[in-house]
């Protein structure tokens, strides 16, 4: 028995030493993972994120809607003219090539979601061309939802409107009923609107800029976040991170930015 107790003690001491060594190893691994360019000691399936501010503002009922918004655009790449939210205010105009100065966004609306309605739904034919199907057709590749917001503040073309409606797209694999109720529970939101016609399938409706990415939520204290942009949105918000700041900056003097033709922009990355 004495031999048995001694062995158990040795094992316990060994385990304690191993725990201490493993602690040191784990700490080193953590420190290394802070460097984006470090070569991982093991194959990583993910990189550390820079922040979680966006997800902090989402209430549990609207998580599904946020997940749907976030998933859109997972497999695309694009040119984003605007570097910051301020670039999308009505007093910021862009000259592209030799074009006249234009505001990139039709407007910005802040308010509470008052209605979510089904729009159109589409699949693809064998040539890859979109074909409209019934909204609840399981073969739909994507569906449009019409979101109506009861306006608290509005800028640009929607200034003065009591209600503003716009279209967003969700993937065909989404649970439609769950999506509708989840979007309806978003509460206080912000949407940066593109001009009608930007969404080819709902040509008479406003749509949300960056293929829906600039549909965000507004916290009780007025803080803005766009969950699909990821991280803490810091680079994009660039200090314009509350509704009050958006409204203040929109009253500032006009700003004109020049953009070269084609792929180059003054803003992306």
């Amino acid at each position, binding site marked *: 028995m004495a*031999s*048995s107790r001694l*062995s158990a003690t*040795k*094992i*316990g001491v060994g*385990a304690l030493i*191993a*725990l201490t060594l*493993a*602690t040191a190893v*784990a700490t080193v691994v953590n420190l290394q993972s802070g460097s*984006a*360019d470090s070569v*991982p000691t093991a*194959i*990583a*399936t*993910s*990189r*550390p*994120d*820079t*922040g*979680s501010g966006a*997800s902090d503002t989402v209430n549990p009922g609207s998580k599904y809607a946020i997940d749907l918004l976030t998933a*859109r*655009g*997972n*497999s*695309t*790449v*694009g*040119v*984003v*003219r605007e570097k910051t939210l301020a670039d999308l205010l009505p007093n910021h105009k*862009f000259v592209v090539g030799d*074009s006249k100065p234009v505001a*990139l966004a039709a407007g910005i609306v802040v308010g509470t979601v008052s209605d979510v309605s089904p729009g159109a739904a*589409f699949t693809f034919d064998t040539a*890859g061309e*979109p074909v409209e199907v019934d909204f609840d057709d399981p073969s739909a*590749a*994507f569906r*449009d939802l019409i979101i109506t917001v009861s306006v608290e503040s509005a800028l640009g073309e929607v200034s003065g409107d009591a209600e503003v409606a716009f279209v967003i*797209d969700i*993937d*065909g*694999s989404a649970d439609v009923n769950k999506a509708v109720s989840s979007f309806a529970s978003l509460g206080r939101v912000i949407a940066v609107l593109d001009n009608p016609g*930007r*969404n*080819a399938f709902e040509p008479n409706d406003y*749509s949300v800029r960056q*293929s829906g990415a600039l549909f965000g939520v507004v916290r009780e204290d007025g803080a803005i976040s766009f969950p699909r942009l*990821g*991280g803490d949105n810091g680079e994009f918000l660039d200090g314009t991170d509350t509704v009050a700041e958006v409204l203040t900056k929109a009253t500032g003097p006009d700003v004109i930015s020049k953009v070269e033709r*084609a*792929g180059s922009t003054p803003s*992306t*990355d």
Partner: protein
Amino acid sequence: MTKSSPLSSPRRRAGRRALAVVSVIGAIAAAIVVFAPATTPAEAVFAGSNGKTGCSAVNMGHTKFPKFVYSDLTSRVEAHADYARSNVVDQTHISTGDDTSLDANTNVVIYDSAYASVCGYDWYNEVDGGTLALTMCDTVYSSGDCRQHSIRISTTYFSGATTAQGRGLLCHELGHAFGLMHASSSGTCMKYGVTNPAQDWDSTEKAQINANY
């Protein structure tokens, strides 16, 4: 003749060593659980085999020897696709090849056109910018791997894009076709945005590709 203690027999000693090894492994595992950044949100690198298809699906391909079809591509898009295959994809465990015809056994199909509506995305125009390319998994095997990916490239954008932008864009879409997700780092072509694109995957992404193909 003395009886050996049960604890000092070779079998018991082996059992004790095994117990010690298990304890050490357990302690290491516990330490990793305790000290791993469990609450830190992470940026996914690799989608893996997930059975997903459709407009936003990123799903890994089925084979390390994928067969490509270029569907009547413009010369610039074709050149950039060739570059990205040779200098990015084929530098990993994956070895790409050409298919003689487009059929169910084709693994990656690349199309280009002046797209305006595919999947409801806001496709590129000169004033607004917008979506330049999209990769979709169209069909899957029962295992969840993607059987056939389609890549769509906007020719509207390519009329004025630089060579670096074109190569970066094809590097990006081919990454999606083999299961890579978007990155926030500028050190990889998987970053969203193409103004000053990297033209290669980073070491973490290559490690994931090599581990899965």
